[in-house]
Every structure is written in structure tokens, then in C-alpha cells.
């Protein structure tokens, strides 16, 4: 019971005190989980991160589930994840309800227009970062261009795109392995 409470509090602290998910959380995770609590090793955290990036879902949540599971099985995984998301839920609901109440205010409208322009610039930068990480070779760039062109022209369901791209990756892997043998 005590460990579950510790898991919840530790991850609530990480969720409530770090800005930005993904890699931005890594220093805080290391500090809380490796240095302070000795729950996992630094290598384990890096492994969880690597796997968390290539499994579905939010990376920070995947990492929390891994650590919780290691400490206390399935219930530990659930409790650690709930700890991670609780601060987000509380903070966002508070901000959202406040903001919606003043939505008709002209000054707020102008401020939000400015913020949206900034948000667009930041997201374009995120796309560039993603591109740098995902363009391993020419075939990757071809997949990127093809998917981008097709989804701009027709609105393709993302689920189908991901499934087909995964299949292309697997088939390419098989072909390359055969060629290497021959």
C-alpha cells in the first residue's frame, strides 16, 4: 500500500512540475527515480524511453507505466500513470473553464490570435525535429513525401496510413535481409 502511495505522489510530482512531455521530462525522471528513490537504473530509464517512443501512446505515460509495473505489477502501472496525469487534468480543467468564461473579451481574443501564430511556428519546428529523427535514408523520405501528398489530396484515415507504413517497413526489412544474404 505504501509503495502505491509513493508511486502516485512521485509521478504526480513529475507530471505537475515538468513542462512539455517526451524528452523534456527525462532530467526530472532521472532525478526522482534514479537519484532520489533508486527505483530503476539510468539504463532502464533509457530503455523505457526508447520503447515508449515506438509504442502507441504518450511517451511520459508509457514510462510511468513501465516503472509502476516494475515496482508493483499491473496495479503499480495503473497507479503511476494516474499520478502522472492527475496534475494535468486539474490544471487544464481549471484553465479551460476560466478561459471559456472570458472568451468574448476582445483583449483575450487579440492575445489568443497572437498566441496561435506563435503556436504554429513552434509546431512547424516540432515537425522539423520529427523529420530529422525519422529520415534514416532515401526510402524514408519517399514514404514521407508520398504520405504527405496523399493526405493533402485526400483525407486518409491516420490509422490506415500507419498500418500500411508499418507493413512497408517490414517488407523492406525482409527484402534487405535476403539481399544481404545473396
Amino acid at each position: 500500500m505504501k509503495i502505491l502511495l509513493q508511486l502516485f505522489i512521485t509521478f504526480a510530482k513529475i507530471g505537475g512540475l515538468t513542462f512539455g512531455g517526451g524528452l523534456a521530462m527525462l532530467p526530472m525522471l532521472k532525478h526522482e527515480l534514479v537519484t532520489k528513490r533508486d527505483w530503476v537504473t539510468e539504463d532502464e530509464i533509457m530503455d523505457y524511453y526508447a520503447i515508449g517512443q515506438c509504442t502507441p501512446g504518450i511517451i511520459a505515460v508509457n514510462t510511468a507505466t513501465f516503472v509502476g509495473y516494475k515496482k508493483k505489477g499491473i496495479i503499480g502501472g495503473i497507479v503511476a500513470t494516474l499520478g502522472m496525469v492527475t496534475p494535468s487534468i486539474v490544471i487544464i480543467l481549471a484553465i479551460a473553464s476560466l478561459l471559456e468564461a472570458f472568451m468574448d473579451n476582445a483583449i483575450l481574443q487579440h492575445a489568443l490570435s497572437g498566441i496561435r501564430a506563435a503556436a504554429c511556428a513552434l509546431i512547424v519546428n516540432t515537425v522539423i525535429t520529427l523529420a530529422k529523427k525519422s529520415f534514416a535514408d532515401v526510402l524514408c523520405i519517399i514514404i514521407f513525401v508520398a504520405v504527405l501528398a496523399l493526405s493533402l489530396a485526400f483525407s486518409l484515415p491516420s490509422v490506415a496510413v500507419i498500418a500500411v507504413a508499418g507493413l512497408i517497413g517490414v517488407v523492406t526489412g525482409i527484402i534487405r535481409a535476403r539481399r544481404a544474404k545473396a
Partner: protein
Amino acid sequence: MNIFLLLFLEFFKVGLFAIGGGPATIPFLSELGEKYGWYTQEKLTTIIAISETTPGPVGINMATYVGYSTGTQVYGLWGGIVGGILATLALVAPSIIIICIISKFLASFRNNKIVNDAFYGIRPAVTALVACAVISLIKESIFTGADGGFEFNLFSTLLFAAIFVLLQFKKLKKLHPVFWFVGAAVLGIVFKL
């Protein structure tokens, strides 16, 4: 179908298929807004900005906010609170199930050739999906007037371009997003964007 049940099912699907963390959920959120009319793309851009500014994983913040926006439309404040909580729990449920299964076979999953090959193809596809969603966000947030038609707003475009250029400097890139948002908000008020 009941809106809360629909919200839960849709976010469960996002949690199951969005591979690559927070940014990978953006194309799905964009799709949901278009499919059900729960929120506009312009509103989604505001949601993304607020989610990047507040503590916690960005993907979780976006899910809570989208759930809130959807719930309030039908049932007011309490509907929003229930919607926010439901969307978030639905988003993380698949993660919990998948990670608990993977934990059992950790070593073999990490070095599995098929898994690695699949991700070789998935990664650029996800980047393209996010790029496509971002293009529609930009179109509706910067180039759409109050009447919903195309509008070229010189100041918004300049602000967008200026911040993008500044972000290419390594030192400025490390600044917290809130810095850009506060600056842009002040400029937005001053120039009555």
C-alpha cells in the same frame, strides 16, 4: 451514441494508434474536430498552445482540454469536467495495457527485427501525418478571417514567420514556449490582431 461514450471510444483509439508521443496525436485530434464538429482547427491551435504552456505531458494536456471543450458543448461546465477526465483516461488506457504486456517480454521486444522494421516505415509516415495536420492548423489559425473564408493577415503572418526564424537559433530554441506565447500575446493585444 452518447457523447461521453463516443469521446471515450475515440480517445481510446487515439491512444492505441498514435505512435510517437504527444505530437503524433495531433493528426487524430484534427480528424476528430472535422468529423464530429466538436471544435474548429483554430480552437485546436489555441488548445495546443495552452497545452505546451502548462505543466505535464503535452499529449495529456491536449486530450484533457479537447475532452473539456467537447463536454461543455452539450452539458456545460460539469459536462466539460467529465469529458476532460474521460478523454484523458481513455487516451492512457491502451498504453497501460500495452506496456504491461511488453514489460514481460522487454528484452525480446527491444531487439525484435520485425518491430524495428515496422518503425522504420512508421516514423516518416507519422511525420507526414503531423505535417499535414499542421498545414491545416496554420491555414485555419492564420489565414482564415472571421467569416471563415480566406484572409491574408499581414501581421499574423509576419509574427509567425519571425518566431519561426528566431527558433532556428540554437540558444533561442531552448527557451520555454511560454516565453514566445507571452510575447506573441502582448503583440496581439497591441496590434489588435
